[in-house]
């Protein structure tokens, strides 16, 4: 097989922080997340030839990571999500500039979401992917991503007791999807 190019390696390195963030969002556990990232890097390395240069490497890597996560979860019979506080403990080491308590609440709320909703809102709202890219990563329809995002958002609002979110204004799509319960 052809040698892995230097630029591919450099890009892999550069993608690691995002991969770790996505992995933590999926697993809710820092150690498992890093194992998942490691698996992802090895897989990506092995199949680097199937990556098409010029396309979005980050999306490609996220797809691999996500597939790996779900296949592990299937193997283990779903004990993937344990909220044993490891993550919380780790993060407590980094005193955040922004309201820490708030963020902790938010993290707790995020944990309560079903995986499919959580990953959708992360990909769209935090990782900066388009709906189309997120749909590609998750192997589902664009409309499915949209509805997961809006359900995730509604659920988070509910858990965090945030009201008045219909002042969302600019986003026609989400407004359309959530319209009915955006009282």
């Amino acid at each position, binding site marked *: 097989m052809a040698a892995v190019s230097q630029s591919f390696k450099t890009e892999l390195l550069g993608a690691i922080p995002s991969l770790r963030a996505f992995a933590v969002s999926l697993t809710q556990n820092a150690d498992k997340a890093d194992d998942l990232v490691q698996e992802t*890097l090895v897989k990506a390395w092995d199949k680097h030839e199937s990556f098409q240069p010029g396309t979005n490497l980050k999306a490609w890597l996220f797809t691999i990571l996500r597939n790996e996560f779900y296949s592990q979860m299937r193997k283990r019979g779903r004990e993937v999500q344990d909220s044993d506080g490891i993550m919380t403990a780790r993060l407590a080491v980094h005193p955040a500039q922004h309201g820490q308590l708030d963020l902790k609440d938010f993290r707790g709320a995020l944990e309560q979401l079903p995986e499919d909703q959580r990953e959708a*809102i992360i990909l769209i709202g*935090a990782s900066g992917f*388009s*709906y189309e*890219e997120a749909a590609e990563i998750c192997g589902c329809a664009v409309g499915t991503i949209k509805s997961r995002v809006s359900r995730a958002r509604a659920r988070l609002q509910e858990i*965090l007791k945030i009201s008045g979110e219909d002042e969302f204004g600019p*986003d026609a799509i989400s407004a359309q999807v959530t319209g009915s319960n955006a009282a």
Partner: protein
Amino acid sequence: MKEMSKKHTAGPGSGRRNGDGNPLGTNSEIARKLKQYYDDLVSDQVPDRFAQLLSQLEKAEPAQKKD
């Protein structure tokens, strides 16, 4: 596995339909918290093990058969 079935659009966010940023609503509490949560994770220091792993993979490579 359904990796890379189709090409991913090049460049993050290129497929976003309304150009004005976050689909969750720029000013929403949820959008801001989500960003904070994620940015915190992204800025977490990357352990050495990953750079080491890539070096190992790289070293292992010449030993493999070239197609």
